């Protein structure tokens, strides 16, 4: 690299950047703003209105700052890649980094599956613990799924969503192979289809399935029976749904970058990272489908 004549290694020594600091400050505002939205912080003086329960201003500024950070930071990464800073060894950095990020995401879902399995499998064990009868608790722990819960038929919309995600896994692979062969047109159509299938999944999940749920989320339901199933179901599938949306955005960015001619048959790690992420989202869904949708249904029938 001409600009670093005296540097005899291929690592990328990144220039100073404002984004980590801006991002951190924005996250502070986002966190305080979230608490203001949820609870409000009672103070006197000029900040009173800003910190009153439900006031969106601080959260909004934080969110804008986070979005600006993401755009600015990742935009810089793209520019650095185009300048040739992503040498083969740096490319391996990025690959390791993405794999490890996905590993941490897997562990995040472990927490939600953990809650689901513990509450599902051990409800009877907990019911046995009760020495002094607390009627509400005994009722809550007696059955899983709780008696007032009407679970989804797994072989209806959920099966369709499973097929949609699996199909999107094939289209993203199609896009990848086309990209490697230098077939820009094929890559474009593969990506367009993947984004469309991802959006369709989101529409079916949030637009068609959730409104039909035969149980409630949060304190809208019967507290002693239906509510807990709704908590685990909606938090686990909802976090997955959020990841589908993130993955769809990631793939959309890749589509734009493809059309802008930023990917070559040799170098297109941004696309590969999006594809890895997409497969991760896909696998999480298969676990959700098997254990959150199918198994309870079989258990209830069996």
């Amino acid at each position, binding site marked *: 690299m001409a600009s670093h004549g005296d540097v005899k290694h291929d690592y990328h020594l990144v220039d100073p950047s404002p984004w980590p600091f801006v*991002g951190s400050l924005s996250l502070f505002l986002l966190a305080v703003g979230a608490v203001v939205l949820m609870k409000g912080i009672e103070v006197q003086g000029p900040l009173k209105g800003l910190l009153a329960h439900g006031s969106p201003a601080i959260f909004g500024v934080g969110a804008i700052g986070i979005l600006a950070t993401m755009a600015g930071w990742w935009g810089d990464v793209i520019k650095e890649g185009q300048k040739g800073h992503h040498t083969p060894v740096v490319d391996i950095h990025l690959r390791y980094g993405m794999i490890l990020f996905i590993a941490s995401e897997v562990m995040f879902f472990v927490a939600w599956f953990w809650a689901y399995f513990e509450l599902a499998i051990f409800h009877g064990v907990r019911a046995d613990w009760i020495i002094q009868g607390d009627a509400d608790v005994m009722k809550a722990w007696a059955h899983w799924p709780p008696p007032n819960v009407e679970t989804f038929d797994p072989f209806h919309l959920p099966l369709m969503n499973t097929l949609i995600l699996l199909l999107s896994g094939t289209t993203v692979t199609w896009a990848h192979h086309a990209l490697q062969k230098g077939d820009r047109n094929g890559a474009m159509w593969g990506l367009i289809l993947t984004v469309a299938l991802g959006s369709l999944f989101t529409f079916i999940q949030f637009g068609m399935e959730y409104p039909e749920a035969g149980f409630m989320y949060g304190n809208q339901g019967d507290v002693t029976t239906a509510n807990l199933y709704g908590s685990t179901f909606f938090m686990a599938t909802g976090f997955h749904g959020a990841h589908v949306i993130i993955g769809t955005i990631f793939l959309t960015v890749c589509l734009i970058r493809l059309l802008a001619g930023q990917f070559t048959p040799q170098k297109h790690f941004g696309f590969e990272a999006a594809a890895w992420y997409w497969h991760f989202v896909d696998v999480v869904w298969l676990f959700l489908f098997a254990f959150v949708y199918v198994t309870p249904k079989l258990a209830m029938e069996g």
Partner: protein
Amino acid sequence: MATSPSAHAGEHADEHGHADHRPSPYDPRRWLFSTNHKDIGTMYLIFAIIAGLVGGAMSGLLRWELAEPGLQVFNGQSVLGIVFGNEHNYNVIMSAHGLIMIFFMVMPALIGGFGNWFVPLMIGAPDMAFPRMNNISFWLLPVALSLAVLSMIVPGGSMGTGFGGGWTLYAPLSTSPQLHGGPSMDLLILSIHVAGISSILGSINFIVTIFNMRAPGMTLHRMPLFVWSILVTVWLLLLSLPVLAGAITMLLTDRNFGTNFFNAAGGGDPAMFQHLFWFFGHPEVYVLILPGFGIISQIVSTFSRKPVFGYLGMAYAMVSIGVIGFIVWAHHMYTTGMGLELEAYFVAATMIIAVPTGIKIFSWIATMWGGSIDLKVPMLWAIGFIFLFTLGGVTGVVLANSGIDTVLHDTYYVVAHFHYTMSLGATFAVFAGFYYWLPKMSGLKYSGFLGGLHFWLMFVGVNAVFFPQHFLGLQGMPRRYADYPAGFAHWNLISSYGYVITAVGVLVFLAMLLDMFVLRRRKLNAAENASPWGEGATTLEWTLSSPPPFHQFSELPVIAEEKHH
């Protein structure tokens, strides 16, 4: 490389010029926008010192309160110009002391500070793999600390401001709308989220750096043990923190969005929070101590002028501590009524950890055995660490037994145990590393007298604080109360005297820093500029100048022989 001698010389001078191209320390952008692992490491260390002073001052309030029966501090009257309302505020300070010391003192010092500074130097790398991400890992910490401090002064619940449920955040105390319904707990949850993001990003950075940036010839089995210790530590963080993130998100939704994960009357289970928390929490306690193991290995080897005894055994002992650390979490929960079979398993699994830990202790002693021991300040701290950590380790074996733990659970015996491993173990390792690497980081020498005085005051002080707490625990004194019956007064008073000695030790530490950095009387001379520690210091950081160039290893070093342990 085919270059003529003159061209090579010119190139070399050029490299020197580039390496010395160090921005001014008075330019705020150097720190706010940094992408330099040494600058970021320095910020971590300064942050850790500040957080340590804050957390240490908080423990001063606790020991002041506990010096005698009755309420001395938390009684609604003005103390030092501040009114500490009631016993709830004692618990708020206690919770904050724990969280600050763990997340904002020990972890930033050991992983962020020494890890950032010395992992790239020790493996022969010019910087971390992701220098910009490195900076957000740091800057998220002041954000997290601000959220935690903010949490202390906003409404907590019926008892007053702040969250008083301990660093473990157990439900239902942390979810009860009546006890902690205010925004305080929500801020604390988000503070831990932010600290967690910081650590996860840092962990990814370290793993990639260690796997992919080792200099030619620096195989995994030639890496210094400190690098091994950081590698194991960050794997633990990467795999355990997201589970905590899930658990505290459940707390957040239980508190704000009406879920019932931890509400028994809604079908949930408060004990499940303990499982999720300790699945993170137990690896976390190894996160706090493993980097210390690495530092002690470097120091013991340096000042015994011997390679560390059983290098591979030492490395894989840490790996096995890390692996087993994931499957022992419920030994924190023996009194939840988990069932005898589970208890038996967790007792057995927990005791097994004593085996690799014993390997480490014995190998340090074997390293010293027959060595040419030089009792310089870092070595004092290292030997102090081995002594105190062993004590904390053996009380850990006692507590591993569910039968005994049923009696000792939540007593001061537990407080004494984990302070011997943390306050005396991890913190002694922090100071050992600090005194070991301070000349390297600054190019200055410190006063050996002040360093030694600091050590002996701290050593006597912390033992006086925590040794009597074993007796208090065995007598049945429960933790997390602001007051106690008169029968516990004797040992509590001694414990509080110990705090005063420790505090004087910290003042000596600050005096040492002032003497070193303000007076700047002792610079490393040319002969000892690379290493003031003589031939025992064999790792790569001692081949560089002190302080090292702004960007080191523009030409990567080649490691040929197996001497860099």
